């Protein structure tokens, strides 16, 4: 093979990394080279050709903007404007809480018990396989009474006595709606803006865009709550806190709900901190060599992850040591908070992380998938979450953290007003319902004490101010000082963003 004139010695010639070209292009080259590595090292000459095609016009026109295809977080220059919230805590109610049993009060339903939902309301709505075969769609009014609370006079179900006490702090959205009717696509859509796995989630975008506030803790942490085996626990997986095509250092770091919060956090017997440090230095050196050889950015991610793990060995024990929490904490969060892995414990942990500069914490509480036995399950779910949620918001508020922390509560969709399976005066089931569901936010950036959007009298369709998922996410980003149209990453030929390609807009009436 004839050698390229610039590359007389394929093994010791100059590498592309030595060239005075834009950093962004080098990074893109590096990604490409990983693929090239697959073809073996003989491809170096091929590599030059590849670079030429990659650089193409850009290389010679010197168009700095076009060359900067893989922006570093610093070059993003975020936030774009002074944010109201520096950090966020997302209480994810996985499974789909039934809005009409909790926060979307529908007084007329009681009269319609066991009547069929009118076809005009249901329209051409796609149903899940679980109820599509039902002969009837009988209306199941909520089993629980609602009362008005706070200065805002917000109607709240008797299931949520604690949430009821903070309604004047909440920004309730009754008109959230999604396009997906099953758990996995719906929960992916909420988290990543796309029903298919592979896109970065909200937390990854935030770590990428805003960076870390604390060198010793991950920027994005995920807390899974213990399972209650009575409940219908839909699985959640690390796809939901994945960084997608962003570097894996932006992915969420999960704390385990049982045992050690982080596996192998403590050094084994006989290995002290010094030994660990020396070992890591050696491993890092090898990794750096690998990076120089192959240029895969994921190698650098690995180095930074090892370093983070090392620092977490010191920071996590302090984070999880709750022995200095005053009695008032336990009075507030309730007895569950003492047991690691419970939702209440996680809420307390989220507050401690907020204090320590964790940018984004996401707590998953599973079990809201109440296809049957609503009257049996909902009281348990609400008992597990209501007090702790209230405690978290109240605790943030009394400690002065709620001013710049955005708290978000919600699931991936709502539930049907008609009963799945048999309807009896004492019990009913509810199927998935994407057309409307209730979420709320509170804290930095959102307007407290309002209810936004309206659903029809069946809590079936949004009749006023719909908030699709993309607008919901655009609004969250806005609170954190990010224009959702400008936090993008070029991948597969598209400027990818959390809100996707359908134009999204910030719901300004939710903002403070």
């Amino acid at each position: 093979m004839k050698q390229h004139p610039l590359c007389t010695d394929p093994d010791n010639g100059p590498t592309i990394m030595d060239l005075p070209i834009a950093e962004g292009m080098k990074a893109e080259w590096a990604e490409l080279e990983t693929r090239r590595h697959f073809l073996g090292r003989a491809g170096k000459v091929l590599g030059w050709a590849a670079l030429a095609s990659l650089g193409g016009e850009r290389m010679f026109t010197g168009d700095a903007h076009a060359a900067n295809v893989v922006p570093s977080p610093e070059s993003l220059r975020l936030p774009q404007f002074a944010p109201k919230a520096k950090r966020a805590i997302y209480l994810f109610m996985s499974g789909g809480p039934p809005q009409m049993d909790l926060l979307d009060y529908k007084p007329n339903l009681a009269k319609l018990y066991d009547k069929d939902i009118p076809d005009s309301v249901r329209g051409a709505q796609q149903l899940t396989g679980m109820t599509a075969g039902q002969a009837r769609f009988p209306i199941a009014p909520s089993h629980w009474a609602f009362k008005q609370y706070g200065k805002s006079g917000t109607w709240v179900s008797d299931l949520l006595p604690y949430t009821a006490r903070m309604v004047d702090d909440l920004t309730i959205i009754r008109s959230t709606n999604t396009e997906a009717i099953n758990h996995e696509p719906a929960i992916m859509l909420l988290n990543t803006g796309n029903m298919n796995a592979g896109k970065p989630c909200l937390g990854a975008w935030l770590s990428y865009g805003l960076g870390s506030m604390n060198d010793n803790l991950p920027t994005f942490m995920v807390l899974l709550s213990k399972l209650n085996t009575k409940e219908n626990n839909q699985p959640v997986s690390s796809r939901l806190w994945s960084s997608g095509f962003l570097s894996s250092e932006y992915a969420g770091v999960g704390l385990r709900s049982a045992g050690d919060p982080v596996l192998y956090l403590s050094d084994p017997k006989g290995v002290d901190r010094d030994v660990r440090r020396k070992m890591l230095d050696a491993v890092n050196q090898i990794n750096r060599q690998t990076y120089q050889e192959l240029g895969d950015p994921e190698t650098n991610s690995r180095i930074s992850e090892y370093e983070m793990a090392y620092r977490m060995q010191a920071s996590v024990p302090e984070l999880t040591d709750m022995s200095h929490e005053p009695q008032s904490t336990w009075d507030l969060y309730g007895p569950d908070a003492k047991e690691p892995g419970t939702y209440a414990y996680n809420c307390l942990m989220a507050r401690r992380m907020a204090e320590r500069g964790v940018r984004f914490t996401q707590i998953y509480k599973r079990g809201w998938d109440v296809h049957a036995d609503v009257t049996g399950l909902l009281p348990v779910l609400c008992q597990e979450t209501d007090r702790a949620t209230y405690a978290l918001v109240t605790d943030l508020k009394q400690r002065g953290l709620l001013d710049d922390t955005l708290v978000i509560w919600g699931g991936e969709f709502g539930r049907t007003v008609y009963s799945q399976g048999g309807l009896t005066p004492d019990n009913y089931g509810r199927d998935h319902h994407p057309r409307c569901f209730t979420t709320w936010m509170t804290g930095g950036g959102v307007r407290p004490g309002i209810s936004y959007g309206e659903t029809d009298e069946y809590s079936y369709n949004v009749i006023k101010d719909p908030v699709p998922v993309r607008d919901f996410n655009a609004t969250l980003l806005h609170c954190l000082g990010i224009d959702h149209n400008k936090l993008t990453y070029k991948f597969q030929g598209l400027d990818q963003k959390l809100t996707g390609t359908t134009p999204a807009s910030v719901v300004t009436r939710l903002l403070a």
Partner: protein
Amino acid sequence: MMIRFRSPGVKVIWAASLLVSIGLLLLPFVFRLDGKPHADWQQFLGRFHPLVVHLPVGLILLVPVLEFAGRVRPALLEAAMFVLSLSLLSCVLALSLGYLLAYGSGDAGAGVSRHMWGGIALTIAVLGCVLVRGAAGGVRGFYPYLLASVMLLLAWTAHQGGSLTHGDKYLTEYLPRPLKRIGGMGTVQAKAFDFPDSFYARHLYPIFDANCLVCHGTQKVKGGLRMDTYDRLMRGGKEGAVIIPGKPERSILLERITLPADHKKFMPSEGKPPLKAEEIAWIRAWIQQGASEEVKSLAGIDVPEPFREEPVPQVGDYRKLMGEITQTAKSAGVTLVPVSKNLGDGLILNTVNAGPKFGDAQLAGLVRFAPYIVEAELGRTSVTDGSFATLGKFGHLRALHLEETSVTGAGLANLAQLPQLTYLNLSGTQVTQASIAPLTSMKNLRHVYLYNTPAQPASAERQTP
């Protein structure tokens, strides 16, 4: 220049033209536009005015084109005279139909009057053109000047007509801002209200402005009703009052806007979009609750305030100091993070990585950069009361975190020098009610956190519902 009559027949034509002109000028005084509708057939024919009116516009514009082109191709000069005559005919037709429209439908108002007089003057001027050109036998003497005036008159009259149908801001609404400034339109004062904070001024007038004033304002006054001021609105139109305070069900205005959209009397008429349910609810509630000009809010009506980002106070340009700032911060183990990409939003002092290693001395080392620091996160550091004197020099601070530090509040009075401070977190410190007393004089300080301190007010809230 003298005009010589070539034959007695021409004299007759001139005399007749003079009579027609006088007749046109007298027309508005004979059939006054009194704001009352007249015969339906008049309106039927009159509604062809907006169609026919484009004929004279096009034809008149063609005349100077032909006159110029005629210099090259003389045949076009002949055509010019022909087109000019057609213009005159179409002017007369458009004027007649326009008059029928205004008279028949009872349109009146300053805009209608201006358009009418423009139309009359234009017709007479075109007539003049025909006569003068005929007499002069070509583009000579007085004729070019007269034709130029016709052009100006045409532009003005057509603009008046356009303002009637589209509203007078239609043309300039989307004019680029710099041009607006040149045209002096950027400084147009907002409408002056006697009670600018009232519900009427803030929420109802904008609805009327957007939906009603085209026909019930200064330009046109349909049905004798003007809605451009509160007094005129309450005075009503030819059917009497349209708003009866306290009685929405008897108020014609509400009745008209709530009719079925295809009803003959539905408002806004002529296919304009109906008012939103929310807007109708506001109007109903306003009438129900007295239709006052002054009342600021209405029971049961919650109007969301339009969203508006509060401007953040700006700091100076610190780009030249950037190297020093980074260096100093690094040696203290802290970071100074920009609030946003806008330099003027300032820097946040973040000490979380230094923790207890950050103390009074390190803070003092950052005083140089105080003019650029808008938020200091000193929670869980080892700063003491000794730092309050230093912090007094951080004149741009908006937020100060001192939670979980050992401060007791001695020296807190220094913070009174921070005019922009809105947030102060003293949770978990040893401050007392006495030591925080100086804070009461700070007017901008809206958020003070005293959780878990001796100064914490006794909590009335129980922990169980």
